């Protein structure tokens, strides 16, 4: 194959004794994970700018007196990198013991959020539940924030600021920020208010990137008490036309939550408030399970589909006969899937002969 002259030239470095190639611009962490090195992280989210806060990803680089954060350090030609020396692994374990010491609890229900098991998983991997470094705990929860979507359980916060960064970098909302400093840092909104009084759009991205469950999905947590295995089913969000991939969480036949699909081609892990939280309708007792038609007494009565469709057709025909085809206007529901939206416009255009069709998500 002829190389494209605009392709970045590939360079090489030594990774744990093996020569590997990399593309200029890649970080050490990116090169290493590409080569299946399991470098621990807590402040890393591949969608965000590398931050360099947790320091767990530090690796040894020949010629550097101290370990360097692999997430923020660019690979350079000839670099000699050691990703898991005894010394670095010891520091990682100590760091994890330190992190564990600042939280009220470590094991949280996976329904709290997509990344909520990251800390507990790492603590187990490094056998770091030793109880060393006991002392004051950091972060103050906000039980007063009674919004229906996001639990702000900051007692479990480890100050990785992934929530703040995803809100700013991915969402552009800048609804939350870091207040005070040192051990007393606290995630806050403007003037320490409630999320509903801030620029928050309740997209839930902060929840899904939180590695400890300090931010949790309140909608899903309603089902934490249900026993049984949680199953994931990949589908597309039924709302607007973007087509975000989601994983629907179910226990038996009960829908218990929605996770954004990090590999969804349209959303790469992003969702909005509707896709993330507005799925109560699925199991709502008011949801219609059978067609209804109005009887002679004016009340709605359950019926079969043939009867219902005949009645609807009759009504449309009557209106078109009396007032012409442009007297009909149709709005497709944003809660219906794309396919249903397509059928709706086909029915209106081809069936009724008018272009009076819209979708409520257009606004």
């Amino acid at each position, binding site marked *: 194959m002829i190389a494209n002259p605009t392709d970045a030239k590939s360079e090489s470095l030594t990774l744990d004794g093996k020569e590997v190639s990399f593309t200029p611009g890649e970080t050490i962490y990116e090169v290493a994970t590409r080569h299946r090195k399991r470098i621990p992280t*807590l402040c890393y989210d591949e969608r965000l700018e*590398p*931050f*360099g*806060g*947790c*320091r*767990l990803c*530090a690796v040894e680089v020949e010629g550097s007196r*101290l*370990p360097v*954060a692999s997430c*923020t*350090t*660019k690979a350079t030609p000839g670099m000699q990198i050691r990703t898991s020396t005894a*010394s670095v692994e010891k*520091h990682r374990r*100590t*760091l994890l013991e*330190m*992190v564990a*010491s*600042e939280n009220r609890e470590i094991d949280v229900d996976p329904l709290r959020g997509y990344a909520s098991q990251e800390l507990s998983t790492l603590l187990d991997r490094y056998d770091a539940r030793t109880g*060393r*470094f*006991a*002392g*004051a705990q*950091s972060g103050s929860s906000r039980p007063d924030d009674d919004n229906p979507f996001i639990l702000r359980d900051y007692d479990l916060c*480890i*100050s990785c600021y992934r929530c703040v960064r995803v809100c*700013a970098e991915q969402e552009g909302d*800048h*609804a*939350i*920020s*870091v*207040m*005070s*400093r*040192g*051990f*007393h*840092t606290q995630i*806050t*909104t*403007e*003037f320490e208010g409630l999320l509903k009084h*801030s*620029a928050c759009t309740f997209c839930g991205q902060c929840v899904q990137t939180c590695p400890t469950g300090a931010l949790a999905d309140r909608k899903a947590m309603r089902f934490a008490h249900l026993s049984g295995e949680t199953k994931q089913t990949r589908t597309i969000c039924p709302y607007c036309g973007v087509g975000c991939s989601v994983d629907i969480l179910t226990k038996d036949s009960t829908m218990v939550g929605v996770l954004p699909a990090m590999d969804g081609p349209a959303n790469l892990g992003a969702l909005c408030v509707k896709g993330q939280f507005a799925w109560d309708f699925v199991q709502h007792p008011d949801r219609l399970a059978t067609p209804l038609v109005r009887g002679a007494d004016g009340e709605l009565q359950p019926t079969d589909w043939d009867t219902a469709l005949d009645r609807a057709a009759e009504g449309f025909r009557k209106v078109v006969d009396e007032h012409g085809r442009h007297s009909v206007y149709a709005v497709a529901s944003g809660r219906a899937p794309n396919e249903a939206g397509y059928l709706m416009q086909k029915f209106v255009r081809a069936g009724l002969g008018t272009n009076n069709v819209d979708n409520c998500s257009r606004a």
Partner: protein
Amino acid sequence: MTVTAIPTNHQLIEQCRTEPAPLLPLLHAFHERDGHLSEEALREIAGALKIPIAELFGDVTFYHHFAREPQGYGVPRVCTGPVCAHRGGLELLEALRETGARPMPCAGRCDEPVPVLRGGELLVGTAPRSLVTKPSPIPAPNPGGIEECVFAHIREPGRATLQGYRRTGGYEALERVVRSGAPADVLAAIADSKLAGRGGAGFPTGTKWTAVADAPGTPKSIVCNADEGEPGCFKDRALLDHDPHAVIEGMALAAYATGATRGFIYLRYEYPDTFGILAQAIADAEAAALLGDNVLGTDFTFRLYLRRGAGAYICGEEGSLLNSLEGKHPFPRNRPPFPVTHGYENLPTVVNNVETLAAATAIVRRGAEWYRGLGMNGQAGTKVISLSGDIRRPGNYEVPLGLPLETLLHQWAGGPEVGRAIQAVTMAGLSGGFLAGKDLDVTLDEPSIRSKGSFLGAGGIMVFDDRHDMIAVARDAMAFFAHESCGKCFPCRIGTQRITERLAGEAGPTDLSAWIDEVADLGQTMKAMSACGLGLAAPLITESLLKYFPKDVARHVERTGHDARGDR
């Protein structure tokens, strides 16, 4: 009767908005006008500068001195730093309690305790009624009679004025250099002098300036780091108060040598008098065409801006300082890239300490060889040491690098009080931890002090005589680092807290070997994994404590165990 109109929000905003680095001056303007930073003020500022309000709120809470409660600006802040705490600071704070007085970390007046900041005023004294404003102490004449560099002219009357500065050749170096049109000569002189950063890190100044000169991208900047926050350091205050034009000339020379066209002095909040002196010096230099557009009628342009911090030790770290200047959250930046290529606004930037810039002026005037020759025992040049604590003549001393510490302590500064012995001294302010016992035989230069596991750094040395409980001294030192830890990196944020708790006896093992294990593990991980100098250096406190005072540590842990078990 004159009526001074109170400026409107709009007027305050318009004064700052078009200048570079507008956030800090704007916050200070509202803070001073209103007596605090109200929600309304922050919303105005956020709107004007297009900063998200949540971020601005978070940023403001980062700084120690920005008051959010009404009248908070004028509430006295009393220094309770390592020296002042033992010189009446704690008693003064108590005596001023009913005024709402609050403690503040070392405010850089260790040679004349105790400083009290009240609004825009800095007062000094040890009792509420004896608090006075007065100029900061001028360094005493060199006790060793040794030739100086940055203090050579500082004691001349009127030196702080433009006229006084020019009396002995001030700005002649700048004039000669800009007229000669040879920036490379300046770079060569600085490199040849072996001048290294005097703020603590010791990076070769010539290498830094050359890197900025060579780096692509304009406009380039010169930033003077005058955020002298290290406890026990007050040398930059002396230079800026009594010889401000030497620093300004150094910045202009750096600008000319590197092609920079703008400069910033980032001054710590706790030096309000210095702010006034610098503002005047800059105005005078501009009026004399030594700064601004077309310096001395040439096509060299250098605009200098004075900016003031608001109480955050970490802003002395260059990445934090640059973020603070840019109006961002003052976390340190990831390195690389370094400021020489990605500094202020991600453009090439020299960040130099005050003393470095003052020395550069002298070097360009008098030559690299002269400067190199000022050192002793093969060391090049001089270093200002801020000496304070239990010593008879505290103050700033410019020493030849390589001078024995004992000479400074005993011959120059008079030694401890009669009947007392020096128990320990700190190095690099607090960042170098303690030296004690036989290790006091070091010479004042990095190779010698580093061989003892410490470092000279910014040159602050605090003396503790045999009256002190070294555990308490170490606890207060670590509490300072915990208070100032920015919260970005895990090892420092958690480590400084955990070590403080252990030194305070509030948490941790009651078994001595487990206690030592925990403290040593915390320290080693902080020293290896922290993101900036704060977390890397803080463990030197406990490392040196364990090295020199193991019996005190054992007693402390035993006492903690007794308390935990409820023994008497």
